[in-house]
Every structure is written in structure tokens, then in C-alpha cells.
């Protein structure tokens, strides 16, 4: 029985580096190739040795698909393609391809910055990797090879994020990557058609949560920033160059405009200009509101947000500064933090995850006395706030997507085991489909029952229609024809057409049967009795008595001869084609019962 196998190397019952292997109809696909930011040794990458043991990577894998530009989904890609040795095709959307190198460069900088870091990719490797990437459009069916095709659907979450349908023949898998079922300030909601895949692999970060509206969180954020600025304090927002930063910029820009605020907002990195450039370039990927207003006013051309110079940090008075990196572990954000931390009027807002060991992680966990370099103790008096703006589908959203796509099976990844377990039961109850949640390294096998589409020739269809078989979707009907398998497809055609197409000569296959009848009369008299008998019984059929003494009923031929040893026994030779098998069998059994006495 055909089967689909799924093995997560990462994101199986965890929210770490996503990397999922799918085998479908003999094709092997890797979904995402992420890294774990929490480690700085080999543990940051998925363990690819499980793939390399199957021989050369490029021979084993048919393609790699990246769902979006976050590093936990694409961070290991240059390592995989340039250092582990995968040389095959890589697919992602156009915005992901454009933005991915920025994030990879950003992360490389942080990493090579660390002493003793080895086994990490270079700038040239990032470029070489990106050159292997084939960028795809939404809803464009891309033929990876003759059998394997993929198609991207809008996923919300971040600019360029996509869900991918992977299809081989009539078997298919949909991988959601990270997605968001409610539109946010700059992106729309995820959407997929009713594609009824054999398997839907869905993220489940918020598997048990019904998230409060993002609007509430945004209001809260604006309130906190506003209050701090009003009392003359400074607000530091450590961010990575791209993603969350743009969303928060739009938020503050509109708020500043509406409230007519004067306090300066600065953005500290050169990368952001490029990031904003991409948001402008891929305006079609943003939400409807941004697209509509784009002509009058481009959301990404900020009036209030200016470039930051390191000297500004000492300026008196309130200000808001977006600074990189996002975890307060190096560079400008840390430098500003150290300057402002001692003043209780100031505030730092952490909008994302922080790795253990970073200043960001420490202050988020409530530590207020930090040992900095040279054993200086930095006392943190400023307010510390955490705001989650991450855009994932919540439990409701996940159920909504399942309803939309109508999969035959569901597999959950990118979430915590306990929460997944809860959602799994809910899915199984509501949709009556099997739901799986393999751990990393565990293989889930799903048996599929593919329906095989068959084309029907127009000639055959017309012929069937003329004999009253009008096609009707609701009433399936039996149709006779010859099934031809040619050029990887199936067609039902008339036998004549099949012969013609395949260049074959027709052979008649006839069944014959001898029936013994006790009748002392002459042969022609027996034949006449048989004829009369059949004519009487088979009123709707054409029964003929031919001049040569034989009888035909449709294509069935009956001849009578005397038995060589017993003249009182007549032998009836009945022969029929396989098309008239039913009638032939019926006739034989009829004759075997003997002829009625009254038949003259």
C-alpha cells in the first residue's frame, strides 16, 4: 500500500529548529532547515547524519523547501548546502529569498564575533547558497521534476511566509510552516484552498491557547511607550533587523501621528533601510489595507522615525530607540541599555525570545543586578517589559485551517508535547481524522489510498451518451471500455480506438461448450426445436435460424450434430464471445435443462 513517511529532525514536539523529512511516492523532501539559537556548538543545527547515512545527500533528497525567513526555519541552510554538501534545488518565495541573506548575515556576524567559533558558514557561502534557491510565486505550480510538484500558499506570519503543497501523482502533503489565521497590522491571514491533502503538517505553537486579540497587546505596548515618554523617560526596544521591527515601527509611526507626539524615534541600524526597502518591494505580500493606502501614503516611509547616531543616547529628554541585536548580548542595543539601565524613568521592551546567558534573558527572568565585563555590577532600575507579538495561529486558527483544507490526516510539529496532545484529541474528535505528533527522530508512516484519475475518450463518452448514459455527477455509472496506460496516464477508450492507438490486430476470443440433448429426431429437426424454444424464451433478443442450419442469439452460435456413438443423443455446440459471457452462460444452462416436450 502506498505510504507517506514523515521524520522530524527538528520541531518534533519542540519549538526549536524546524527540519522535517517527508517521503512521498518515492520522493524525499526536506521541509525547512532551521537552526537553534540557544546553542553555539553542533547542537544548533539539525543532525543531518541521519540523512547522509542514506548515501549522497543530493541523490537522496529531491528538494528542500523553506517556509519563511526566520532563522529557526532557514538558519542551517547555508551550512547544509555549502558545508554538508547538498547540491540540489531549494525553494522559497521571492520575499524569503530576498530577506533570508540579511538575517543569515546578521546571525553570522553575531556568531563569528564570538571567540573560538568554528564550523560556521561564511558570507560567500550564504551567497552561493542563495544562488541555488529557486524563488516561487504564490499559487504557482512548480515542477521539481516530472513527478514532483509544489505550490505555495499565503501564510501570514511574516513577509513572504508560505505554506507549501507537495504533490506526487495524486498523493499530497501540505506543510504550513508558521502561519497566522488573523490579519495583523501589515500582513494578511493565511489561506489555502480545499485541496484535501493526504496529510497536513501543521505548526502548533499555540496549540492550547486562544490568543487575546493582537490589538489588545498593541494597545498595551503603545500605552507603555506613551507613559514612559510622557514622564520624560527613554524607551529602548531591542530588535533584530527585520520582521518584528517593521511591525512595531508602523505601530509607533501611526500612534505618533495620531497623538501628535514630538519625542524622537530612532532606528539604530543600517540594515533597516534595506529591510524597509523589501517591505516596499513586496507590497503585494502585505495586507489589503497597506496595499490600498500605498498609493496615497507608503506605510514604510516613516515621518517620525529617524536614523540613530551613537551620540544621541546621551541627549536629554525622552526618546524611543529601536536597536540591534534583539537579545541585548552585544553591539548597540547593549551599549544603550548600559547607559539607560540605571534610571527608573526609562524602559526596555523586549519583543522576542532571548537565549539563556544573554542580558535579555537575564532581565526578563527578573534579575536586576548584572555582572558586566570587568566584574562591574550594573544595577537595572529601568522598567523591563516583555511583549509577545509573535504571529502564530492559535488553537482556533489551526482548527479553521484544517476545516479549510480538509486533510485526510494531520501531523503536528513546532509545539510542546503536552499542548500538542490536547490539540490532537480535539482534532481527532472534531474531524474524525488521524492526528500524529512524532518526536524528533521518530518516523510516522501514513498509508494512503490514492484514487487514480482516468481520462475518458470523447468518442467513448459520446457513444455511451447515445445509448442513454448521460453523465451525472451525483449518480456514478458503470462504463465499459478499454483501459490504456500510456505516458504515465490512464485513459479509457473504445476497444477499436485502443487497437488503433496501440497498433494491435483484433483477436476474437470465443468460449465454447457442448451440451448433450436426448432427441432421437434428425439433426435439423432438433435444431428447429431448439430455435423455437429459444425464440419463445428470449423474446427481447434477436434469435435467428441461419440457412446453414445453425442458430444465432446475438453473437452466440449454436450448431447441432449427432453423437458419433449414440444417434439418439444430439450434441449442441454453443460458442460465444466474452462480451456476451452472461448471455452465453445463461443459454448453456437453459439448454442443459433440456427441451420442453411440447416444442415442435
Amino acid at each position, binding site marked *: 500500500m502506498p505510504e507517506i513517511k514523515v521524520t522530524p529532525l527538528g520541531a518534533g514536539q519542540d519549538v526549536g529548529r524546524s527540519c522535517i523529512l517527508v517521503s512521498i511516492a518515492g520522493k524525499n523532501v526536506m521541509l525547512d532547515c532551521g537552526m537553534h539559537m540557544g546553542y553555539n556548538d553542533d547542537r544548533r543545527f539539525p543532525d543531518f547524519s541521519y540523512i547522509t547515512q542514506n548515501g549522497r545527500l543530493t541523490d537522496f533528497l529531491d528538494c528542500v523547501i523553506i517556509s519563511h525567513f526566520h532563522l529557526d526555519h532557514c538558519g542551517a541552510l547555508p551550512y547544509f548546502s555549502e558545508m554538508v554538501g547538498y547540491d540540489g534545488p531549494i525553494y522559497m518565495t521571492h520575499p524569503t529569498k530576498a530577506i533570508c541573506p540579511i538575517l543569515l548575515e546578521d546571525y553570522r556576524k553575531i556568531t563569528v564575533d564570538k571567540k573560538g567559533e568554528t564550523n560556521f558558514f561564511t558570507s560567500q557561502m550564504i551567497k552561493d547558497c542563495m544562488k541555488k534557491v529557486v524563488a516561487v510565486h504564490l499559487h504557482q505550480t512548480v515542477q521539481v521534476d516530472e513527478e514532483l510538484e509544489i505550490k505555495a500558499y499565503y501564510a501570514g506570519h511574516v513577509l513572504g511566509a508560505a505554506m507549501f503543497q507537495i504533490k506526487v501523482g495524486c498523493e499530497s502533503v501540505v506543510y504550513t510552516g508558521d502561519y497566522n489565521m488573523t490579519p495583523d497590522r501589515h500582513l494578511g491571514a493565511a489561506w489555502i484552498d480545499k485541496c484535501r491533502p493526504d496529510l497536513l503538517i501543521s505548526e502548533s505553537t499555540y496549540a492550547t491557547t486562544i490568543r487575546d486579540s493582537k490589538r489588545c497587546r498593541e494597545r498595551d505596548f503603545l500605552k507603555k511607550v506613551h507613559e514612559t515618554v510622557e514622564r520624560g523617560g527613554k524607551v529602548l526596544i531591542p530588535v533584530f533587523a527585520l520582521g518584528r521591527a517593521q511591525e512595531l515601527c508602523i505601530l509607533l509611526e501611526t500612534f505618533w501621528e495620531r497623538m501628535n507626539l514630538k519625542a524622537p524615534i530612532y532606528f539604530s541600524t543600517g540594515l533597516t533601510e534595506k529591510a524597509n526597502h523589501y517591505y516596499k518591494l513586496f507590497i503585494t505580500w502585505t495586507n489589503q489595507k497597506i496595499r490600498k493606502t500605498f498609493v496615497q501614503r507608503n506605510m514604510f516611509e516613516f515621518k517620525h522615525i529617524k536614523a540613530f547616531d551613537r551620540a544621541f543616547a546621551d541627549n536629554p529628554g525622552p526618546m524611543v530607540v529601536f536597536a540591534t541585536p534583539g537579545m541585548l548580548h552585544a553591539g548597540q542595543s547593549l551599549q544603550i541599555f548600559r547607559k539607560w539601565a540605571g534610571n527608573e524613568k526609562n524602559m526596555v521592551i523586549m519583543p522576542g525570545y532571548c537565549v539563556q546567558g544573554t542580558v535579555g534573558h537575564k532581565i526578563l527572568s527578573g534579575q536586576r543586578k548584572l555582572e558586566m565585563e570587568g566584574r562591574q555590577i550594573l544595577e537595572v532600575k529601568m522598567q523591563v517589559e516583555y511583549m509577545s507579538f509573535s504571529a502564530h495561529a492559535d488553537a482556533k486558527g489551526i482548527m479553521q485551517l484544517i476545516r479549510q483544507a480538509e486533510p485526510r490526516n494531520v501531523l503536528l510539529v513546532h509545539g510542546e508535547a503536552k499542548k500538542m496532545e490536547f490539540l490532537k484529541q480535539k482534532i481527532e474528535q472534531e474531524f474524525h481524522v488521524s492526528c500524529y505528533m512524532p518526536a*524528533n527522530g521518530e518516523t510516522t508512516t501514513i498509508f494512503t489510498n490514492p484514487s487514480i484519475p482516468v481520462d475518458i475518450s470523447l468518442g467513448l463518452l459520446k457513444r455511451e451518451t447515445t445509448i442513454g448514459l448521460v453523465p451525472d455527477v451525483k449518480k456514478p455509472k458503470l462504463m465499459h471500455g478499454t483501459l490504456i496506460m500510456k505516458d504515465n496516464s490512464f485513459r479509457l477508450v473504445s476497444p477499436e480506438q485502443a487497437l488503433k492507438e496501440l497498433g494491435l490486430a483484433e483477436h476474437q476470443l470465443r468460449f465454447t461448450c457442448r451440451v448433450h440433448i436426448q432427441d432421437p429426431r434428425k439433426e435439423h429437426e432438433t435444431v428447429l426445436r431448439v430455435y423455437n424454444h429459444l425464440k419463445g424464451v428470449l423474446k427481447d433478443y434477436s434469435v435467428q435460424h441461419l440457412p446453414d442450419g445453425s442458430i444465432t442469439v446475438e453473437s452466440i452460435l449454436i450448431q447441432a450434430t449427432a453423437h458419433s456413438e449414440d444417434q439418439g443423443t444430439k450434441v449442441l455446440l454453443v460458442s460465444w464471445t466474452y462480451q456476451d459471457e452472461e448471455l452465453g452462460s445463461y443459454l448453456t444452462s437453459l439448454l442443459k435443462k433440456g427441451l420442453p416436450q411440447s416444442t415442435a
Partner: protein
Amino acid sequence: MSRQQAWFIARARHRFAMTRECSLLLPHVCAALADPRQPGSDDTCLEKLLDWFRELTKFDPTVELVQNNPCLTEFITSVLALPEPSPSILSFTLRLAGILAASENRFQHLQQEKLLVRLFGRDGPLNSALWEDASVRSGWVEGVHSMMHHQPALHFLCDGGGIDVIFTLQGDPSLFVASAASQLLVHMLTFSVESEMTEPLSTKDCDWPACAQMIIKHIEDSLQSSSSSHIEQSLKLLTSLFGSCRATWTEVLWLGIAKQIESFLTEETVQVQHMLANLLLRIAWSPVFCDTKGSIWALVTSALEHLTPVQAGPLAVGILRIPECPQDVRIQALTVLLQPMDCILRAASQPLEYAGLLDESVSDPATVESLLSSKSSCVNLLCQTLAHLEKLLSLIRLPVDLPYMSLLRSLMTILQFCNGFLSPASPLGSTISRILINCFRVQRSALDVLAALSKQKGCDTLLGSLFDVLLAYLESPNTNPTVLKKTFQATSKWLVRLQELSCSNTQWQQTKKILEDVFLVLQKRLYSPCWEVRDSSLEFLTALINCLKDQDEFRQSLLSSEVPRLTENLLEDPESYVRASAVTAVGHLAFITCFAPESPAIGNQYNKENIVAKLQEILSTDPEGFPRRAVISIFTKWLRQGCTGQLEDTERFVSRVIQTVEHDLDWEVRLGGLELVEVFCSQTFRQLGHPKCTYAPLSSVVTSYINQNESLHVFCRAKVFSFLFQSLCDYDKPIGQRACDVLLGLRYTFYPVRTLKDSQGAEDSRAGPSIAWLQRTLRQGSMAQNFPTDGDNGVDFQDPESMLLALDIIDLEDLHDGLNKSSDHVEKSPQSLLQDILATVGTIEENEADCY
């Protein structure tokens, strides 16, 4: 123990020591982790905690750690007492216990408390519902593996039935657990034999130690079972064993199973042939099979015969690399690798046109022919064969002579099948050509082999037709960007070969024609709408200039083409990667235009000033980092090659560059600037001579010394010092480190002999207020704000006297140490980790789900 080892151990001990602070924090951490009411800790924290314990116990076998920190055993006890511990905490506990039990002393200590038996024994987690969780099984295997360093642990496991658990786990649904179980068995077998055997084994009387005996029996039983999965597990184990252990006893083990393994080659009921190649390869590589080498080679020969070509490929390429491989085996291995190539050649040829690669009597090509004529297997077989050939050709010393000419012809045939330029009449040929048309995978692999083949001699007569094939690929609009890149790589390698040849004979007409054709097609490619193609084209051009810039024909053909002009146009490409590659290409072009000894008379466009100005413009205005990084790297290259003119010109040039890059937002551009300064300094010293002063100068001597010291004046005028000192305070640490290195280099040159300073940071009496200010500022490191450039705060970075004094007075060694201590602010100390875990308790739930 060597001194170096001792130093490493001392350093590791110091770094990971159980300090007083740590031992005070640890009980709280243990209590928090064992508390089921607390939300689970971040997995990375638990991993890092285990890393720390691994380091703590690595060089310390004593029981002190567990005795002095009873919270560790209490923690294990309390986790065991929990009715339903979380799988991650249970897994952590199993691994922790294993790490602690790695030394015999601590093992006994834990045994006395009956902790190990409760964790790893029959009544432990392995009989609970939690065993269903892969992380618990994985923790169990890892725990056992960690403790398996002494005999009591071995006996504990074997006597308690634990070994059967490991046998079962070999077939675990989790790949990770199954693989870890297999590795554990290898380790146990090796450890058992090596620690418990008193006398060497003889082949006749195999008296294995008890644990080894159990494992070997399990291997033998599995090999004889009818279950493919059991056989596969044992084959995996053996492959790993023979790969990692080179002890003589492995030969005894092998002799016991060799017959069985051999039978798998011909066995049709169990399909494990695909695993045999790897196993046989490991055995063939192992140096211990001296006495049985003959039978091993016979087995390898049989495997090469019986395995399918795809299965036999890795074995063939592997054994060809073994120096002592017998000639007949070598020939057979080569046959396996060359047969598909031979078939291709024969399929494409007219009868009797070419001899194939192989003598037909060597092997029967029927199998390979049937594989090549099937759509599903053809591409796979060819890609694998090509990959093996590339591997073979990339070896520095080829162990065999390959028929290079025929191989090249076969490669060309494949490439022509792929682009539809060849559709032979023979049935096999036409089938293969239909399968291969537009097949990128095969194209990529074939071009890789083609590039590798360029190193070999003996293909020269085919060069003309080879370039026809390559040019067809370069020209065709259907060529996929990745394939095009590989075509460029192969072309550049073969162009170098062509040039070598044309130097030695009279083929220059042909060379000229080929070069013209290449540049013609390159011109078109530089216009490509696809940035990947433009970028690969520019990289190709740079590679060509690098290799062939000394060749007249090359220079002439290049300069008479449109390529240089188009390359310059690409300096304004919308894609930053392309602009960067254009900068590099233009920089290299300059070597054969304006920097060439006999600059060709080709108009004003190659004027040195023009090019420098253009690149300067990019350095100061390009909005993206890649082109700016490329400019600074080209400038450094020019400087190294002495292309920037006389010292005076160079000084002006460097000064301009410094002023442009010192405020660059990209840290790598600033780092490039420092590299340029370093090259400049060493070149200046080379040209002007090193300073002669060998003593700490007294003021009267200083003046005359300074006056004499032209280099110092040059550096001051070029604003080198302000850039270097300012970089010391850069918030990107690698900049500070590099600047400090350069300054230290200068200091060593100006003050070759120095008296050591006694107190760190004490102000020198000679330091005026400005240098004292500089000293103080530098101590603040990246916190220093508004670092002065010339004029502010009284530091005159262009004053030779001040700078010489600054070099002497400022404690650069101390700064260097400080900067090198950590280049980021991620705290890695165990104390910080413990604090973080403790602080996170109760706060993590809100934040953890937010992965992005």
C-alpha cells in the same frame, strides 16, 4: 601527561570549577527542577547544565562532588519519588546520574543509595508509562553510555538484564534512540573486551568476557534470523565497530561471522545487500586483518560482482583508495565505476567508431544497460557514478590510471544528451538521450567531474570539441543558473589547461578563437535578467583574470571584447551581490589595465584615477555592505601588490580610505579598513626601514628620533592613529581586537625593547592631560562616547610625539587581554547559568512559547 595537556586540564578545571557561589546556588536549582509545580526549564538550560557536570567530572574521579553537594543525590531521589515526573526532567535525571556514575567511586556512592538500580533497573522508568516518551528512552541510553567507563557499571548492566533493553532499543522507532543504542553496544563490546580480557584471544579458542559474549551472541543470532531488520541492526553495529575499533580481537570476531555475511551476498530472501558495501569497506580499511586479507579481498570481489551497480559504487570508490588493494580487485572496482560511462559511450557511437572505456570481456554490461534504459534508475545510477568519479579524480594521488580520454568523451556525450545536442540512432542511445534531456541533476554532476578532470593530462586532442560542448551550455538560454555556474567553473579550469598547452605548442590560433567565443558569450551573460547569472559571470571573470592575467592572448582577447566595459556598468547593478562581484572583477581587471607594466593603449576608461574614484564613490555611498566590503578588500589587495603608487600617493590614498570607512555602519568594512592599515604600516616600514631606536626614549633623544622617523610622520599624516585608537572603543568587539593587534604591532616596532610596567593603569608621569584622558577613555571600552577625533579633548592624533608617547604609555597588553576575554556578552559561566535557571522559575511560562 604533556605540559600542554596539563595546561588545558587546569584551564578547563578553572573555568568550570564548582565555586563557592555555585555550590550555594546548586541546592536551590535542584529543588526548583525537582518541583513538579514549577514549569519546566528551557531545554537549552538543562543541556548546558549537563555540559557543566560533564566538564566537572571529566578530570575528577573522586566522590567529592556528590559528597559535598548532597543536593545532587537528593534531586535524583525526589525525581524518583514523583508520581508523574515530566519526561524532560526524568530524561535529564537519567543523563545526570550517568555522568556522575562515570567514575567508579561515584558509581559506588550512588549504588549505596540504590539510585542507579531505581533509575536504570527493571523497576525504573523502563517499566513505566513514561518509557513511551522517546526523550526518556534517549536519556536512559545516554545515561548508561556515560557511566560505562568501569567494570562495575558493565556488570551492573549485564547482570541486571539492562543489556536486553539495549538490544531491543536497537530497533526503536526513534532514529536517535536506535542509533544511540547501537553506539552504546559498540562501546560496551569494546570496553568489555579491552578491560576484561587478560590474555589475547586466539581464533580457535574464543573465550570472550561475559558481557562481550552476550553482545557477540546477540549479533550472531540476529545475523542468522530471518528478519531483515534484525540483520540490518547487527550489520549497522558491526560497521560502526569495524570503523572505530582497530584492535586485533575484531579479526577473531569477524572470522566467526564472515561466512554468514558472505551468504547475504547471494541470499534472496533477506534484502540487506545495500548495507554490505559500507561494512566491507570498513573491514578492508582496517589494518588488523593481516592474516585474513586474502579472504577479505575475495569477499570484496564477490561483493563487487553480486551487488547492484548502485550498491557497489561506494565500495568500489572506497577500495580504490586503499594502497594495498590487489590489482585484480582494483580492476574490478574500476570496472564497476566505469561501466555506466562505457555504456553511454557505446550507446552514442556508431558501431566500431570508438573503442569503449572497457574491454567487453571484463564484464557483462547487460545489467547496467537495463538500468540506464529505465527512467527511474538511469539518472540515479549516472549521478552516483559521476559523484564517485569526481571523488576519485579529486584525490591528490590517483591510485589508478583512468582512461582519461574516453572518460572525457563519455562526459561530453552525457552533457550533449542532456542539452539535446545528441540523439543517437542506437535504441539504447535514443532511450538514454530521451531520459536525460534537460536533466539538471546529471548536468551538475557531469560538470563537476569535468572540472576535476581538467587536472589530468592526456585529453588534449579533444579540447576543441570539449569547448564546443561547454560553449553550447554557456550560450543556451535553457541552461539553469546552477548548471551555468558549474559550466563557468569547468570552463575556467579547462581554459587554464588550454593556455598551458598553447604555451608549449602552436595551438594559439585555436586558443584565440576559443577565448573570443568565451568572451562573446560572457558579454551576453553579463546582461542576463537573472542576478544569479550576472553574479556567476563576474565571478568567472575574476577567476579567469586570477589564473591567466600573465598570458598575452588572454589579455588581448579580454581587452578587445566588450567585457571590461560591461563589467564596469555592473558597478551600478540593482542587486548588491552583483555590485560586490563587479567591484572585485573591476579590481582584478585593473591588474591588466592600469596597473600593468605596459598599460595597453585602450583609451581613458582604464585610467587609474577613474577606477579608484569610482570604487571610492561606492565605498562612501553604496547603501549596502557587500559592495563596500568588496571595495575595501580590493584596495587592500592593490596595496599588497604595490599598485597604489609611490609612498606619497599611497599615503593620500590610505588616508582617504580611512576617513571613509571609520564611520561605516558595517563592521566588516571597518575591519577591512584595519587590515588595509596593517598592510600600509608594514609596507611603509619596508620602504622606509624600521626605526632604529632600541631603548625607551628620553625626551631629548625623542625629538631627534621622531624627526628621523619618517614612518611615524607618514602614519600621523595618514590619520592612522585616530582610526586605530577610535576602533579600540568600537562596540563591535572584533574591531577593537584587530585595532589593538595593529597598535601592538606598531608598538613592538617602535619599542622593540621595553621595560615591564609594574602597576596596571597607573598614569605615567610623562603623560600630559590629553594622553591621560585617552588612557582613561580606552579603559571604558565600548562605553566610551563621543570618542575624539583630532582636536577634541586635546589629543592630537597627528602629532608624532603624542602618538609615540601614547604607544608607550597606554597599556595595550592589558587592553588586548580585556578585549580577548570575551567578544560578546553572552555569559557562559556556570554561576550565571545557575542564576538564570533560578531566576527563570515562575517566569518562563509566559515567554517560552514565543519562538519568534
